[in-house]
């Protein structure tokens, strides 16, 4: 008999009593040989079943992490069953329009939807040769994204935010306005909430409702009052559905995950309980690999119609971008939209910091035939000029604005226009890419042509001098 078949047969066995309970971890001794990462059912004294997973297995003891927490479990009263297979989740497109908990069980009062498939929530690595390189431009209608940090279908582009900044508003606006040029496509939104408050979930629901999109949205909620350990599985459940919708049903799926910082904290909690050697700030050494397991579940696959675009949201502890959570995320994702508290304080929405934000996939998705031929050079020029603005502002703060050279004054004006007119927009304002690019040129017209090294003479003729004379 094969090892795996044998273990499935053993899954009927129930072990009474736990050797130790520590936070979300339950230690069980004297079991049959249990497989690594097996699905576990812990039954409490009242007969309620809680799901868990094997974290460590040996001939001596098995360590189980219980996703629904261990509150109320007793050492003698806990009964454990090992299911001989990993944790799976039933998926189908009937899950759209519904609300689930972090493990994929409905919490909207409706019945569990019929499943078409039941894949392992951990997913499996995509073979790099099976991937299709993403290059389709998504117009979000937001200038600082479309113009400077373009979102591409199949990209993973997180928002690095801070407490109290309007990241939810921006994510909802992107979800509402995102479209491909050249028409509608089959789309869906999968929303995973980890450790956020009820009102955040409600905000997103209302926002989807207003646009009539709620039927295309599946929500997985593991809110602040749910056991923190459930957050570890929530994004995996959500991504498993996203993969089904994208690769089996051909939908273009936008996955919004918030707040990744809460996810990482749960991971740290377990690691600490297990006495693992921490790396930076107490986070486990495998945080990078663990996050990669989530973020890499995005993209496109050759010969398959659908796609997964990820928009993870994370709040940077102390607004510190070098904190391990944003830092490791930035190393994995394909760019980042970084929020700046100071911009927010000046009433600029979205408060996107111009310089540290980046879209790595932009280079292959913009330009002639995709957005407009001047886009690559224009974006590069705006970055260069805005970067100089920052230097000039520093200088002005030392020597006083009056002492600046006339050229530097022009840069100050450019910076002001760029932030107030180009970046800043209404929360329901949906600009076309042409409007965005034209606005960029309008900003550049505040500078003398000799300063614009990054654009070609032809582009200057067409967009700088061309319209400028009128």
């Amino acid at each position: 008999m094969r090892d795996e078949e044998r273990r499935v047969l053993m899954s009927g066995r129930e072990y009474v009593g736990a050797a130790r309970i520590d936070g979300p971890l339950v230690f069980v001794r004297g079991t049959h040989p249990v497989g690594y990462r097996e699905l576990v059912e812990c039954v409490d004294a009242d007969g309620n079943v809680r799901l868990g997973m094997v974290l460590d297995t040996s001939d001596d003891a098995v360590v189980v992490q219980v996703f629904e927490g261990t509150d109320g479990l007793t050492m003698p009263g806990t009964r454990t069953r090992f299911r001989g297979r990993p944790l799976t989740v039933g998926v189908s497109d009937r899950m759209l329009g519904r609300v689930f908990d972090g493990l994929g069980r409905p919490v909207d009062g409706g019945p569990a939807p019929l499943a078409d498939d039941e894949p392992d929530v951990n997913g499996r690595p995509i073979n790099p040769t099976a991937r299709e390189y993403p290059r389709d431009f998504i117009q979000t209608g937001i200038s600082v994204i479309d113009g400077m940090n373009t979102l591409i279908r199949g990209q993973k582009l997180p928002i690095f935010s801070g407490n109290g900044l309007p990241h939810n508003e921006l994510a909802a606006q992107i979800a509402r306005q995102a479209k491909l040029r050249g028409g509608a496509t089959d789309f869906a939104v999968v929303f995973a909430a980890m450790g956020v408050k009820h009102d955040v979930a409600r905000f997103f629901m209302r926002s989807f409702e207003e646009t009539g999109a709620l039927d295309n949205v599946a929500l997985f909620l593991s809110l602040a009052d749910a056991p923190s350990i459930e957050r570890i599985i929530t994004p995996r459940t959500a991504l498993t559905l996203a993969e089904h919708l994208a690769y089996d049903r051909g939908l273009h799926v936008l996955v919004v995950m918030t707040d990744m910082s809460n996810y990482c904290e749960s991971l740290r909690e377990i690691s600490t309980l297990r006495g693992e050697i921490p790396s930076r700030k107490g986070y486990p050494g495998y945080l990078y690999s663990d996050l990669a397991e989530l973020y890499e579940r995005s993209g496109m696959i050759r010969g398959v119609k659908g796609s997964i675009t990820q928009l993870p949201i994370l709040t940077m502890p102390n607004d510190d971008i070098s904190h391990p959570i944003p830092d490791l995320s930035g190393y994995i994702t394909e760019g980042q939209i970084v929020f700046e508290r100071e911009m927010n304080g000046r009433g600029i929405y979205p408060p996107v910091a111009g310089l540290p934000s980046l879209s790595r996939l932009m280079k292959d998705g913009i330009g002639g035939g995709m957005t407009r031929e001047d886009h690559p050079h224009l974006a590069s020029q705006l970055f260069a000029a805005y970067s100089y603005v920052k230097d000039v502002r520093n200088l002005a703060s030392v020597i006083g604005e009056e002492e600046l050279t006339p050229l530097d004054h022009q840069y100050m004006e450019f910076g002001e226009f760029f932030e107030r007119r180009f970046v800043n927009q209404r929360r329901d304002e949906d600009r076309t890419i042409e409007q965005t690019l034209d606005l960029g040129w309008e900003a550049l017209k505040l500078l003398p042509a000799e300063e614009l090294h990054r654009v070609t003479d032809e582009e200057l003729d067409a967009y700088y001098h061309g319209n400028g004379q009128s």
Partner: protein
Amino acid sequence: MNERIIGQVRRVNGPVIEAMGIGDARMLELVKVGESGLIGEIIKLSGNGATIQVYEDTTGVAPLDNVYGTGRPLSLELGPGLLGTIYDGIQRPLDALLALSGRFIERGVSAEALDRTRLWAFEPRVAVGDEVSAGAVLGVVQETSRIEHRVCAPPGVSGRLVSVAPAGEYRVDETIAVVSGPDGERELSMMQRWPIREPRPVAQRKPLDIPLITGQRVIDTLFPLAKGGTVAIPGGFGTGKTMTQHAIAKWCDADIIVYIGCGERGNEMTDVLNEFPKLVDPRTGKSLMERTILIANTSNMPVSAREASVYTGVTLAEYYRDQGYHVAVMADSTSRWAEALRELSGRMEEMPAEEGFPAYLPTRIAEFYERAGYAETLSGADGSVTIIGAVSPPGGDFSEPVTQHTKRFVRCFWGLDRQLANARHYPAISWLDSYSEYLGDVRPWWEERVGPDWATAREEIMELLQKEVRLLQVVKLVGPDALPDSQRFVIEVCSMFKNAFLQQSAFDDVDRYSTVEKQLRMLLAIMAYWRRGQEAIKRGVTLHKLKRVKAVQDLVKMKFTIPNESPEEFDRLMARLERGIDQLEAIYA
């Protein structure tokens, strides 16, 4: 393969498995775990226990599962058919895995690294009766239209040839020669095996004095790398490590490229797979994929295989070096490799040193870079392995252990600067933090091959850049107006040098690659502006007027407007510059 049961699983903790009941097993022996045959390697033996690092996801592995020994270490298959292939960290061909298990990589699937069905046209270079020793070229195979694969006698072989296959088509595992030596007869095929953790032998190491030309101006002109050398590219996320590695892989003058994607993004490997076959090597006119081997162990693939991937890559490189080729290895990112070591070490509950890394981290880093070098091969030819390692310091802080230890063992350092990257000044290689210890070694090559004034011009601009730092500090305090034009001109020339020379667009068809001639001409043009401009300012011409000379403005765009093929256009540009400044002087001086 004769596999035997060597013990049973006792404990599973992620990719690390402890086994018990171990009788005969060897350190670093390749093993298979459980009925699905997950590939692993014995990394520790103690009493009747063993620690195994498993190269695949261990989900479902349980105590008492059998562990099978294979009797050999983790080794590579070396022979024709490597070029143009993409492998995972333990040399499983990803194309074959795609055919076997579809778009997701399943556990326990395996495929031979070299295709056993493919026929290769072999031409012998030896005859029966010849005495051969390790490294001797037995015959050749045209592996791709640009690379002749030299089938060499593997290390350890020596004796007289008792048979040699006639020219014809053979599979990689067919016998093409039989050598009779002191230990009896040995059949040789076009394929050999070599353990990944063991450096392949060479006849002797040679000094490094030929630059590896990358076509990237900031590198070749300011911080040159030598063939056989080592360099680290550290930088925070998004500062351009991968783009720099890609640019070098595309345009450098190595014969063979081994690109290791170690714990990084899947899409970046896809990008290479899509782009390289379409790109043409400016030197040979052939597709770049014909000289490239890819190793992809992306961040979501098992962490142990990430640890192995850098050794796999460098072993492949040594194999082509031994055939007399110059090979460049890109490892993106060596930090992920170091972190894999840390994770495995942590799971084995070893005592950590700095930041959780094991105490043997520096030794491992040193051993890895030590495999680079310029050598006389066993067959008497020259070959080299150059290692270009990306480093991803947490928080972009270069004081962390991986960056610091790497710095001890490499001789060239291209530090990426966050401020430059933020301003989209690419490549964001800092001209202040970077250095190359190969400068003196490659200087004769540049002076003989390119131009006698290379080193002087380079020194001159480096001095100006240093001077600029001091002037900018003054400007920060009192504003630019406080400086006289002669000093502001230093800032102007440096700014010109940065815009016109250092910045290089990877996306522009003309600019993405500069020949050494073009690099020197551009540098000399800017230095001519410096000299002529200084004179003009001394004679009373204002900086403002000087900057508006048309030829000066054209200097900024020369990288785009003057193609590699037309260096003579620089003569015209220089003449116009002289004339333009002469005219100014005539009017204002």
